[in-house]
């Protein structure tokens, strides 16, 4: 059993691993985050990335900006769980998950998932699964600022 496998999602991780799962206010560079993932292995040949950005419209309404709120601690724990399940279930080499909180302008970055694998099929599967799962289990909330006012968004009514 490798060191990776005994790491539990509810134990804070340290060093490099902590950088692979983050909830942060600051913007990020995709090139820089890619370097972290690629540094893990020369065996990586296929990298699938999802980048979520703030659209100027949502369900037919104009949107001027977004504020994300998260449950500090639980949000990170759920994202660590997602990374570990992805590593275990999809045969990938590395997975990075990053989500921003605070004020987000239109066009700005919100969420980044990078899945590195030997081949592209596993990378795509893991990346797609991880963003779907993030939306399901991660305690993050979205306040949309529209010309008519502010509204807490319910994605799954």
């Amino acid at each position: 059993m490798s060191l990776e496998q005994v790491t539990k999602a509810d134990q804070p991780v340290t060093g490099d691993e902590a950088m692979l799962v983050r909830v942060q206010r600051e913007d990020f560079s995709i090139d820089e985050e890619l370097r972290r993932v690629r540094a893990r292995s020369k065996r990586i040949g296929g990298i699938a990335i999802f980048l979520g950005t703030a659209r100027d419209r949502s369900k037919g309404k104009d949107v001027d900006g977004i504020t994300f709120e998260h449950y500090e601690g639980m949000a990170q724990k759920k994202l660590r769980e997602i990374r570990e399940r992805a590593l275990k279930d999809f045969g990938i080499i590395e997975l990075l998950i990053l989500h921003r909180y605070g004020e987000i302008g239109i066009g700005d970055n919100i969420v980044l998932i990078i899945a590195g694998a030997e081949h592209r099929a596993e990378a795509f599967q893991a990346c797609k699964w991880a963003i779907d799962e993030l939306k399901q289990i991660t305690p993050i909330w979205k306040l949309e600022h529209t010309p008519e006012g502010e509204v807490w968004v319910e994605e799954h009514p």
Partner: protein
Amino acid sequence: MVTVRLFGMTKMLAGNQGALSLALPDGRRVKDLVAVIEAAYPKIGELLQKKKVLVSVNQDIAHEDLEVRDGDEIALLPPFAGGNS
């Protein structure tokens, strides 16, 4: 007394309080806690009834029969909306 953290629309429905301090006179289970919240904050109570708002204990979603202990970290979680739509 237990402390219940609020987020997003539950925080808004509680007059922008970030947390509630509640006495649990009639039991120590999650459902007893929910009953106290329903009495004090009917709109949050309605969302709890519809399972739109979930209760977490120590950062995991909790069953209504789970017993609440001193020092537990409790929160009311509105529907998640991470990622982007």
